[in-house]
């Protein structure tokens, strides 16, 4: 204890001394530096200088900081522009940065300052001239920053805020050296946007042509203005053309977005329906508790996140096998306890499993409370993949789509390649015959049901990444899942895939016109009409047995 306090005191003392020394030095040397050789001043000195002197002198200091091209030059200027660059009120006049979350950083080193009370801080004032200077300097600094992303965002900011002639010239210079194509494209857009305001009609026309097909949202306003009000007829026509081409591309990407959302919804349908397709298609069992098995999978994810709160990043990898096992065991229990007595009586299985679904729902309500639980998204699941300004794909939907396909093909492989799969197919096609050749039908039934239920559990894990987890989670999906199976054709996994994706896409395409609710109603009506044409779904089971 004592040792540390002494140490701390010593440190503080030393820091104070050095600060004092620098302050005196700066105070003495400032006039000389400012007048003669600003470039020779160190970054640290210049930072301290910002706080001092008149506003007009600050203009020079700021220019000097920018000219240094120190790696932290931009930070200082940014802080100054945002009003976050502050100075202590004591004699030391220490320059600090106060961040948005009220952390105090040393402006020279950007190290956080802790343990010392700096007293009240004073904002370093700026005026309009300084502000516009900062703006330009910052843009320049960022535009030549070694990091691609920083450059891109600097250009994007120019596009949003609009630039002046100086920046336009600068951009023209930088463009020739620019290696990154995205940054170069953005630079072109920024220059063109500036040129759009040019006095010269030819330049305007060139700019309009340059902007053709650009997906950046800020482009459309100025172009529309040109199309409507430009004094030159050619520019007006060309601007309209450019707008049309933009509209065309936007439409295409909106279509792409709809398809993606449709596939994403379809992948949820797929995950929830393939388990059902197994129990329903292969075993002829209507499992109304399927949704609740998904709910169990989702709650498993939640519980795992509660148990290992520090492992959110890896929680899903634990949750997937856990949910498979938990839901699978519950499924086997349901099969052994109830369904095995009801084979060949599909309506009775429907009723009994509905009863089970009610019990499971109520159990979830009693154990986890009727309120929804939020499952956290791991870092790698959040965010989105920006393909261009008009089209982005969220990672969670993308991963769930891929995951759904993975589960689908894994299941297909299990049914095609493994001995369990062979037995399942045998039992589903001819139960007495399978039994006669030595397949333990009851054992296969239990495992098949367990498999279907386990997949429902996995689907629940995926769902927990899209919605909140609650006792009613399963109910929302069960009817859709049955629709998928009916649509795709019973006993055909490919049918389930096509059915799920098809219904997902149709849903998303109807939604903008009809709204989510009416889209559902419409789909139901369409499905009923579809069954008129193809009573056995898209991919009916064929053969003599099916014709009976």
């Amino acid at each position, binding site marked *: 204890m004592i040792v540390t306090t002494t140490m701390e005191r010593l440190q503080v003392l030393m820091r104070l001394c050095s600060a004092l020394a620098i302050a005196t030095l700066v105070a003495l040397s400032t006039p000389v530096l400012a007048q003669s050789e600003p470039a020779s001043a160190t970054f640290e000195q210049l930072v301290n200088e910002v706080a001092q002197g008149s506003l007009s002198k600050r203009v020079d200091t700021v220019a000097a900081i920018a000219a240094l091209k120190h790696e932290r030059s931009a930070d200082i200027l940014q802080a100054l522009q945002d009003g976050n660059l502050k100075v202590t009120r004591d004699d030391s006049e220490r320059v600090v940065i106060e961040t948005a979350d009220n952390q105090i950083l040393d402006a020279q080193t950007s190290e956080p300052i802790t343990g010392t009370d700096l007293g009240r801080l004073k904002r370093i004032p700026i005026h309009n001239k300084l502000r516009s200077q900062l703006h330009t300097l910052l843009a320049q600094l960022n535009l030549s920053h070694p990091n691609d992303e920083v450059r891109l965002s600097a250009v994007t900011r120019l596009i949003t805020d609009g630039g002046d002639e100086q920046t336009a010239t600068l951009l023209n210079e930088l463009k020739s050296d620019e290696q990154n194509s995205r940054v170069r494209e953005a630079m072109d857009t920024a220059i063109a946007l500036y040129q759009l305001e040019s006095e010269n009609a030819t330049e305007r026309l060139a700019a309009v042509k340059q902007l053709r097909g650009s997906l950046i949202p800020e482009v459309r306003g100025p172009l529309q203005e040109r199309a409507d009000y430009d004094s030159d007829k050619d520019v007006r026509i060309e601007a309209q053309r450019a707008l049309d081409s933009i509209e065309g591309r936007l439409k295409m990407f909106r279509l792409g977005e709809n398809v993606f959302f449709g596939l994403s919804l379809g992948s949820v349908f797929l995950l929830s329906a393939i388990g059902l397709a197994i129990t329903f298609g292969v075993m002829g069992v209507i499992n109304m508790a399927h949704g609740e098995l998904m709910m169990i999978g989702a709650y498993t994810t939640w519980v795992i996140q509660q148990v290992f709160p520090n492992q959110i990043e890896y929680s899903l990898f634990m949750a997937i096998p856990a949910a498979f096992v938990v839901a699978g065991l519950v499924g086997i229990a349901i099969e052994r306890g109830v369904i095995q007595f009801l084979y060949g009586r599909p309506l009775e299985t429907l009723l009994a499993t509905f009863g089970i679904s009610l019990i499971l729902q109520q159990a979830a309500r009693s154990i986890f409370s009727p309120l929804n639980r939020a499952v956290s998204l791991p870092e790698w699941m959040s965010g989105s993949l920006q393909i261009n300004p008009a089209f982005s794909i969220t990672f969670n939907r993308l991963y769930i789509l891929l995951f759904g396909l993975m589960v689908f093909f894994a299941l297909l492989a299990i049914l095609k390649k493994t001995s369990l799969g062979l037995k399942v197919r045998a039992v589903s096609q001819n139960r007495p015959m399978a039994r006669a050749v030595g397949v333990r039908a009851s054992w296969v039934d239990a495992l098949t049901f367990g498999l279907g239920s386990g997949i429902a559990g996995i689907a629940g894990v995926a769902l927990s990444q899209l919605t909140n987890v609650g006792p009613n989670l399963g109910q929302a999906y069960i009817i859709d899942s049955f629709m998928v199976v009916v649509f795709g054709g*019973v006993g055909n996994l490919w049918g389930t895939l096509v059915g799920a994706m098809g219904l997902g896409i149709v849903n998303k395409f109807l939604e903008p016109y009809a709204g989510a609710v009416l889209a559902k109603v419409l789909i139901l009506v369409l499905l009923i009409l579809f069954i008129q044409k193809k009573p*056995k779904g898209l991919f009916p*089971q064929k*053969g*003599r047995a099916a014709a*009976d």
Partner: protein
Amino acid sequence: MNPFKHARNWSTKALPQKDPNFGHPLDTSHGPILYVEGVTVSFDGFKALNNLNLYVDEGELRCIIGPNGAGKTTMMDVITGKTKPDEGSVYFGQQINLLELSEHQIARGGIGRKFQKPTVFEALSVYENLELATAGDKRFWKTLTRELTGEQRDRIDEVLGTVGLAGSRSNDAGNLSHGQKQWLEIGMLLMQSPRVLLVDEPVAGMTGEETERTAELLTSLAGKHSVIVVEHDMAFVRSIARQVTVLHQGSVLAEGTMDQVQNDPKVIEVYLGE
């Protein structure tokens, strides 16, 4: 297993709204009452019927034999409207195209079918079973509001006698013996006053005595009705058959009297192996 057990595996074609006019005497001026021509049915690539041709004369008793999978049941499905063929035509008399009609219309029109497995309505009595099968207006509102006429009741009694079930008229059909169920089903066909009777394996699982009685029953029906019998039991076929058709792999292999057929080298090959 299959939830769409009763669904058709063909798309619903536009069926005529009204029943065809069966009131007119059936045009059998060219001899045959049933024409099956060039019929092909395939399930998933497998041809259950392959260019099948079959003509059945009025009042004829025809036996159809053939190994398993020869297409016998599929042929019946096609005639009764349960399965629609990919190709070919099926005519009832000269005028009526059976492919345009649905099952109940064909049944009302005078083609009765007995299934391989006896299917009688087990929850109903023998009398009620026959009552259900009685020819007459079978529309919902008529059956809801009208009782049977005296004439129709007499007809039921008559058929009860024909099939030898007069003694068990008020028994539940579910309690009948296997043979009795088969006869009841034939009786139900008779109640429809059919022109053509399709009988699928009538003596399977019957005792010798029952088989004999069935043979008598079927021969007595021929003449008044055309009877088509599908059967495996060769002794039985020999005892009743005048004309025999052998099916193999979905088409007709041989046709003729029992003796002719039995001595046909192609038939011997199919039955005895290469």
